[in-house]
């Protein structure tokens, strides 16, 4: 396994569509729930321990080779908002395109055939990590980090925040990222024996509710 592959996969410039998504930050900014750096930190922390943990566990389980179709169904059940399910599938499809060009693998081709309109992004991410020779920890790290880097980058654009402040928010979350990854991978390892119910199902009501409102806006900067 090449650890450098993790840098390629986790790079914010990896061309997999993430730049057009705010991870709920655009809706939270409009609602006045994010007005500055402190709110951003709180938002990211909440997202990390809910959607981020679930994504990390799904990615870890996919990287371990668990059935991606079952994992995709588990992701559906953990994503009540249809707007977020659609966003996750769009991102999954975009990541699939980038992954197949970067780390060609029969498993990726098979998943692309199974889900022509895209599987949930964390599932594709886990299989991509696998194709890149990475393990469940690396896959979970990517998913957990994306769950906070997306909103941080988006908020820099939305509120003209100082980019150093936004990056410092991410740096200060690092110990919690470690914890989330540990919890996610432990759950992912239990899937083989216990099935997908072993995966965490942590939810953030406002992320789900606001995603529906956001999807109905006629004019917006971000896709989600």
């Amino acid at each position, binding site marked *: 396994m090449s650890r450098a592959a993790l840098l390629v996969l986790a790079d914010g410039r990896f061309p997999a569509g993430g730049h057009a998504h705010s991870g709920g930050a655009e809706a939270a900014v409009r609602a006045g729930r994010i007005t500055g750096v402190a709110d951003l930190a709180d938002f990211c922390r909440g997202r990390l321990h809910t959607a981020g943990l679930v994504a990390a566990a799904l990615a870890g389980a996919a990287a371990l080779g668990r059935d991606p179709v079952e994992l995709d169904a588990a992701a559906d*059940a953990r994503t009540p908002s249809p707007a977020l399910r659609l966003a996750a599938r769009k991102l999954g499809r975009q990541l699939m395109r980038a992954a197949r060009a970067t780390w060609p693998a029969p498993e990726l081709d098979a998943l692309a055939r199974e889900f022509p309109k895209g599987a949930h992004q964390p599932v594709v991410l886990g299989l991509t990590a696998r194709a890149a020779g990475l393990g469940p920890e690396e896959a979970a790290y990517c998913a957990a980090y994306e769950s906070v880097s997306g909103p941080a980058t988006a908020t820099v654009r939305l509120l003209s925040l100082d980019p150093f402040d936004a990056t410092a928010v991410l740096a200060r979350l690092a110990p919690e990222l470690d914890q989330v990854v540990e919890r996610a991978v432990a759950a992912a390892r239990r899937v083989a024996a216990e099935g997908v119910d072993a995966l965490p199902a942590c939810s953030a009501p406002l992320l789900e509710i606001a995603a529906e409102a956001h999807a109905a806006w006629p004019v917006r900067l971000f896709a989600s």
Partner: protein
Amino acid sequence: MTTAASPQAAAVAPATSPTATLPPEAASAARAATTTAVRAAPAADAPQPTTSAGVRATARIVARHDGRGGTALPVLAGEGPLAPRRTRGSGAEARVLLVGAMSGPLGGDRLTVDARVEAGARLRIGSAAATIALPGQVPGPARYDVRLTVADGGELHWLPEQLISAHGSDLYVTTRADLAPTARLVLREEQVLGRAAEQPGRLTSRLAVRIGGRTVLDQELACGPGAPGGWDGPAVLAGHRAMGQLVLVRPEFARAPVAARVLGEGAALVPLAGPAALVSAVAPDALRLRRLLDEALTELDRACAGPPGDLR
């Protein structure tokens, strides 16, 4: 330790419950006031198997189509703080109220409600008052598990009053509904963080709904002191103190799913990935939450193509 309640003797009209007609805040206060007394002097017909590990109690309800267009309750059994009572039903539907003896869950308690609706039967379960999670003598979290099973052609309405997380409490509550492909469900859950102007305890609540063996909803919410960070922040609750879920399962949603819709500032109606719909809501307090969910249910009732009748 099981007390099978005879429907006649145990009939309790909802209005006779001391707290049923009070607004949630008042109900919580009343519950808090009666809690100690109830625990100190358990009802004679409901011996509490108290151990050093807290109370373990199970309530069992089985609803069966009686062959004459009605629903019978061949099993209606409570234990300790869980006392199910049959109340006057309506048409084909049997009604059960979880009443009075509920004082917990306290720390270390382990309570289970197991309700089964057999093929073609119709059951509605409510509770006479809000359930309050309180700190107990025994250290460690309390657990409250609700298992709901509905067979083909059966219908269950699970509409308990709020679950209130009192300061210092620690509760893990799980609700799992297992439905056959043509079963129907109306499920409402509401969590309230703290009694009036009180800091909440720790509350983790997981809700899973399975239809024909396929999980269509699996959501856990963790909040209060000790919960993972950010739970009260802008992504999760943002200071809201009441949150609720309303799940509707109807076979006809497979053909005609509900359209996703925002219901005001803190609520949305969404189609799930299966023949089910969810209203997810957050509100500043229990009253406003209930109003939101009631309105959503009324609207769904009107919009749904299902048979006429009050969904509640």
